[in-house]
C-alpha cells in the first residue's frame, strides 16, 4: 500500500502517554499534523525516524515496516526529516550538508545540485555556520529532498521566519510532491501556512487523534477550534 500508515502507535515517557493508540494514514501530497503544545507531533516524527521507541503499534511506509529498521537505515529507505531545532552542520559547507545525505542514502551526486537549485540556495560553498536562519532552513529542505525520498517530515519549518520568507517556504514545500514524488508531513503552528499547504490534516490532542480529514473541514470542526485554535465559533474571522 502506498503512503504512510500508523497503526495503534503508543509512546510512553514514564507515566506520560505522549502518543496514545494513534492510527492514521496519509497517501500523497502535503499533509498536516497539528495540535496544541505537547500533543505529540514531534513525538510522532521521532517514532517514525527512530529516535523514540514506540511501546506498541506499527508504521508502514509504502508497505515496508518502518519501526523495525535502524534509524539510519530509514533514511536510506527514503525517510527524511527536519528538526524543530534545525541541525545544519556548521563545520560543513551547504553543499556538503546536502551531499552527506546523498552519499549515505546511496543517491546520485547529481541530485545534490538539483536539490540546491530547487530550494534556490546561492553560494553553496559557504559553511553552515555562515548561513542565515532562512538559508539554514533551505538547506534542511534540500537535505530532505535529495535522492529519492518517499516521506518528508517537516517540524515547524516556518518558525521564526517573517511573512515573506514563510511565503517562499510555502512554495517550496507544496512543490515537493511534484518535484520528487514524496509524501510530505508538515507540523506547524502557523495556520495560514497549514491551510495553504495541506490537503489533509490530522489533529492530535494529549496524544490522541481527535480529527482527521480535509483541511477545510477539520479546521472548521468545533472540537478542533476549541482545543487548538482557542476560538469559539463566532470569532472565526479574527483568526
Amino acid at each position, binding site marked *: 500500500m502506498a503512503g504512510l500508515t500508523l497503526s495503534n502507535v503508543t509512546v510512553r515517557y514514564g507515566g506520560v502517554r505522549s502518543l496514545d493508540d494513534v492510527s492514521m494514514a496519509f497517501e500523497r501530497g502535503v499533509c498536516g499534523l497539528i495540535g496544541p503544545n505537547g500533543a505529540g507531533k514531534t513525538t510522532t516524527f521521532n517514532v517514525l*525516524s*527512530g*529516535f523514540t521507541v514506540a511501546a506498541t503499534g506499527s508504521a508502514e511506509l509504502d508497505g515496508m515496516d518502518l519501526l523495525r529498521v*535502524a*534509524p*539510519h*537505515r530509514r*533514511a*536510506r529507505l527514503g525517510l*527524511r*526529516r527536519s*528538526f524543530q531545532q534545525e*541541525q*545544519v*552542520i*556548521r*563545520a*560543513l*559547507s551547504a*553543499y*556538503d550538508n546536502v*551531499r*552527506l*545525505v546523498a*552519499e*549515505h*542514502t546511496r543517491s546520485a551526486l547529481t541530485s545534490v545540485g538539483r536539490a540546491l537549485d530547487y530550494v534556490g540556495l546561492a*553560494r*553553496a*560553498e559557504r559553511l553552515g555556520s555562515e548561513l542565515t536562519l532562512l538559508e539554514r532552513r533551505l538547506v534542511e529542505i534540500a*537535505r530532505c529532498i535529495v535522492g529519492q525520498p518517499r516521506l518528508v517530515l517537516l517540524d515547524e519549518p516556518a518558525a521564526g521566519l517573517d511573512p515573506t520568507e514563510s511565503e517562499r517556504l510555502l512554495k517550496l514545500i507544496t512543490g515537493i510532491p511534484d518535484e520528487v514524488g514524496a509524501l510530505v508531513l508538515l507540523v506547524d503552528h502557523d495556520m495560514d501556512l497549514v491551510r495553504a499547504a495541506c490537503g489533509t490534516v490530522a489533529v492530535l490532542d494529549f496524544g490522541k487523534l481527535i480529527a482527521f480529514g480535509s483541511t477545510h473541514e477539520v479546521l472548521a470542526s468545533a472540537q478542533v477550534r476549541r482545543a487548538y485554535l482557542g476560538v469559539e465559533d463566532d470569532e472565526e474571522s479574527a483568526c
Partner: protein
Amino acid sequence: MSPQSVASNRTRGLITGVALAVLAVVLVPSLPGIGAGLGLRTLTVAVIYSLAAASAGVLYGRLGLVSIMQVGLVAVGGWTTLRLHYATGLPFEVVLLLAALVTAVVGTVVSLPALRLSGLSLAITTLMIAGALEVIVRYTGFPNGGPGFVGRDATGSGSTMPRPSLGQDDQTYFRYVAVVVIVVLVLLWWLLASRPGRAWAAIRQGDAGAMASGINTTAYRVLALAVTSAVTGVAGALLAANSGVLDPVSFKAQQSVLLFATVLIAGAFSLAGAVIGGLFFYWVPQLLNTWGVDGNLVFVILGLGTVQAITTAPHGIAGQLENLSSALRSRTGRRVEES
C-alpha cells in the same frame, strides 16, 4: 566559488603542506647543528609522535571525542612490533602494518563501551585505560627476544630490533620516518576530505542530525577509533625501530595527558597542528631543557599553555598560522588585483 573550486582549494592546501614537508625531509638532516646527534634524534621522535598527536587531534577536532590514551596506544604498537619482529622476523614494513592493525583492534575495543555515554565518560575512560596500559606494560616489559608470550628475557642480555634496511643510520632513518608520517597524514587527510570526514562532522554536531542523514553513527565512531588507533600504532612501530628497545617508563599515563595538552596548544583542527603538536610534545621540552629550564617546569609551561589555548585560542597555533597565511594571501591577492 563552486563546490569544485572549494575542493581544489583544499587540495592546494594539501599540496603545499606535502611540498613543505618533503622539502623539510630533504633539508633537515643536512642542516648544521640539527643534522646530527641529539637534534636529529629528537626531531625523529617528535615527527613520530606527530602521528599520535594527529590521532588525538582528529578524534577531538573532528568528532569531539577526547582520547587521553594515545601514548598508551603507542606502547601497544611498539610492543606488538617488537613481539612480531622476534616471533616472525618479517620485514619491518610488514610488521608495521600488522602492529597498526593490532593497535586498531585494541584501541577500539577498550574505548567502545564509553562511546555510549557522554563525551566526558570517554575522556575519563581513556585516562583510566592509559593508567591500565601503563601497569600492563610495566608488568610484561617490552619483548627483547625472550621466550613465551611476553617475549622477554629477564637476564637482561636482550637483543635489540634492527632498524629497517632502508633507514639504517640516523639520517636515513629520519627520512624513512618522515616519509611514512607524510604518507599516513596524507591518507588521513584524504579520509577527512571524503565521506567519513563528512559523516564525522555530522556526528560531532549531534547524533540526531547525523542519524537523520542516514549515517550509522556507531559504525563511524568505531571507524574513527580504529583509524586513529592504527595511526598511533604506526607511531609505536616507528618508535620501536628507532632505538630497537622500548622501556615501560616512557609510556606513563601522564605522558598521554601531556600529549593531549600539546595537541590542543598546537591546534586539533588541522593536520598541520598535529605536526606542531608532535614538536611541542617532544622537541620543545628538549629545547627548553637545553636552555636550562627545569624539566618539571616544562610541565607547568605546557599545562598553562593548554589552559590558555583552550580558553582563548581554540584553534591553537595552527589556527593562528592559518589566519596569518590567509591574511597574507588576501593582501597579496589584493595587490595583484590592483596592479
